């Protein structure tokens, strides 16, 4: 048990060293102030200890300048820490443009991962080194939280909506995935491993496994099977809006407000189509709540995202893999 006694987690992402820098700086400042206060308290308590039972303390006038000093100095340090912490957070919040999208579905008590190429894994998650990866995550039941300590990233995974988190691994190896939000009986066993591989090894790994159709291809098939294509046609907007080129663009809703077509809006429109109708359409679409799994919704969204207005653009939205070697 003494063999592995780490005090700090490994750094395995580009973000990790930035979070650690923040942490160690703060630890330094905290130690300074902690020791300052403790030192003064101990020194005063000994230096001014009571020498006779009748003795009383020497009252002094509180100096306003002292109050101002010890309010303003901490305030400045605190605002500095806020700004630095915010900078790191914003960076962690906003994935870079070249991030490849992977999908995560959480349920009591497992993690399901879908690679854009169609591979699926449970609890184990293989990803390539040096490639920014964005996870689009949802839950099938309660709130979970995707946490990889070695990456210093964490984001709650909610039922009924998508959250994202991104990382770029910079060290090969196997690291813990934890569920950090309490989710029921086996919460502490809702763990997985993230396996970081050299891009070439990752390609080999992908090739060596039986892969289903890609997310986009599965979505395209579903689009037929679920009869979405009956109304959502590419050549006529009579019954339902044309989905080609819709993703990421604003649409005007029946109440006049404007909604950007994003993952959450598409999901809502599948589950509760009447909630936010596009202007000019009647609430004809039935709900798919209960008739479609979260994995399938993800595939449909993947497909809709891939539908560029111009067929030639289709390739651009397909996830790009890092170059080999």
């Amino acid at each position: 048990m003494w063999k592995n006694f780490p005090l700090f987690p490994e750094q395995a992402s580009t973000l990790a060293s930035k979070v650690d820098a923040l942490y160690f700086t703060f630890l330094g400042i905290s130690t300074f102030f902690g020791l300052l206060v403790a030192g003064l308290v101990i020194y005063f308590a000994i230096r001014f200890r009571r020498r006779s039972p009748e003795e009383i303390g020497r009252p002094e006038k509180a100096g306003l300048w002292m109050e101002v000093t010890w309010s303003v100095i901490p305030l400045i340090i605190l605002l500095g820490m806020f700004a630095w912490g915010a900078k790191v957070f914003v960076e962690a919040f906003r994935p870079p443009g070249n991030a490849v999208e992977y999908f995560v579905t959480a349920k009591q008590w497992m993690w399901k991962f879908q690679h854009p190429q169609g591979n699926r894994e449970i609890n184990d998650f293989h990803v390539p080194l040096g490639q920014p990866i964005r996870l689009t995550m949802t839950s099938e039941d309660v709130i979970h939280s995707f946490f990889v300590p070695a990456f210093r990233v964490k984001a709650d995974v909610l039922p009924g909506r998508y959250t994202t988190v991104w990382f770029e691994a910079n060290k090969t190896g196997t690291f813990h995935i934890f569920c950090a939000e309490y989710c029921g009986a086996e919460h502490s066993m809702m763990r997985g491993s993230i396996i970081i591989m050299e891009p070439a090894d990752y390609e080999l790994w992908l090739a060596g496994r039986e892969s289903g159709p890609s997310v986009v291809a599965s979505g395209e098939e579903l689009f037929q099977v679920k009869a979405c294509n009956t109304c959502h046609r590419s050549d006529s907007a009579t019954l339902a809006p044309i989905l080609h080129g819709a993703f990421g663009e604003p649409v005007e809703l029946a109440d006049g407000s404007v909604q950007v077509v994003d993952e959450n809006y598409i999901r809502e429109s599948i589950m509760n189509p009447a909630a936010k109708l596009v202007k000019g359409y009647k609430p004809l679409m039935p709900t798919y709540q209960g008739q479609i799994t979260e994995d399938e919704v993800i595939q449909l969204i993947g497909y809709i995202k891939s539908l560029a207005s111009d067929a030639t653009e289709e390739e651009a939205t397909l996830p790009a893999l890092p170059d080999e070697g």
Partner: protein
Amino acid sequence: MSETVTTPARRKNYLNAEYGIKSWLLTKDHKRIAILYLVSVTFFFMLGGIMAAFLRLELATPLGDMVEPDTYNRLFTAHGVLMVFLFLIPAIPAVLGNFLIPLMIGAKDLAFPKLNLGSWYVYNVGATLMVAALLRGGTDTGWTFYTPYSSVFADSEVILTALGVFVAGFSSIMTGLNFVVTIHRMRAPGLTWFRLPLFVWSMYGTSLVQILGTPVVAIAIVLVAAERLLNIGIFDPALGGDPVLFQHLFWFYSHPAVYIMILPAMGVISELIAAFSRKRIFGYKFVAFSSLAIAVLGFLVWGHHMFISSQSLYAGLIFSVLSMLVAVPSAVKTFNWTATLYQGSISWQTPMIYALGFIGLFVVGGLTGVMLATLGLDMHVHDTYFIVAHFHYIMVGGAIMAYLGGMHYWWPKITGRLYSVFWSKISAGLIFVGFNLTFFPQFVLGYLGMPRRYHAYPEEFQILNVLSSAGATILGLGYLLPLIYFIWSMRYGERATDNPWGAYGLEWETSSPPPTYNFDEPPVVTTEAYDYLAMRDKRVA
């Protein structure tokens, strides 16, 4: 301020004024109600402590090999619910506040004595519901009741426990209301706002939070019950609800509730530092107003519990900066306490040991709180043992250290008896060492990535967990000692003088224990708070 020894002959006081169980259960005397609360909160502290003992025992090994996972979840839920709602929230206000506020302001009683007694009964109804839930198998949602787990998925006594929390909340509102009215209307002649003891100021701030915050958690609980029982979609996305809405409602109360726990503690510490330095608190007005600043700002920071719960980036930024601001009044208090020691006449009595220990632990708890308010850091340590360590430093290292310090300080006034100096110092030492050994390793565990509420964990976390469990054993022993020597002192302890510490304050001017209506002559205040110089002059004259 008289320091003459009260004649040991049985003076009439609130304890021997009447006898019999009825004289206690139907009392309207704030001091007796404080004792009733003392018995109740001590009981629930022990019950919550036993739950913690099971948790630490289970966590001594990485495998979940002692109890079933489901049992473990019910244990930590019970530990949290009992400690927060039945111990920490009422402890200082309902025991020390109840006993001391009328004494400190020179009043006969609180403004609404019947409401005060009623609050104790309401507390016990709430407590009974929670205990009933425990006996029926307990609840497994965590004390935070996050939806949709609590409202749809959990198969345990959620409703009964939540109802208990709901009811107990009203007792807290009643106490707060009573204190606000009392402090406004019943101060002795000459006792202006700026002559009030700082404990009264902090209780005033606390009361405002109790009155304004508690209804919101009550609403949140009703909504969870509505969803569970009536299938109304409020938090469950499958019914069109929003699971994060619950977190907003819950933390809108439960973050200020942290200040319900720590503000009274800060008030106690101000009293202890003044008394055992025999000196006016440095920067009295700054300390007084910092209590109000904390009470107000405390309402504006709830979103820092949700930085990574899909809250928008901008909401995160605003809640982060506001959380930074709330650290300033806490820092002001700490620096003022430290400055008070300078040129004081410092006596190392047991209550002072607690007070100095409090400062150390509170500084650690406060600084780690600032780390958690820092967005980039919270992302990593949120929902890990870092959080667990942080809030135990505030609630146990802060609130309980202050509560025990206060109990040791006012015990001679409450019971008229002295306890063993030797054992009380041993116990204070054990608690300080045991506490740090229990919770400091948890900061390291948290940064390493061990999530909270884990029944089993990867092997590399074991050494730190063993340290923590070992510390918990020492801490438990430290808590057991006062229970023994306090009870022992009630019968065998030396009789206390009216003012055994030579401290300033109206509560020390009446006899120990005080008569039923507190003062034989209604007091008139002519000096500033903690004016030890005037007190000495008066005695010499």
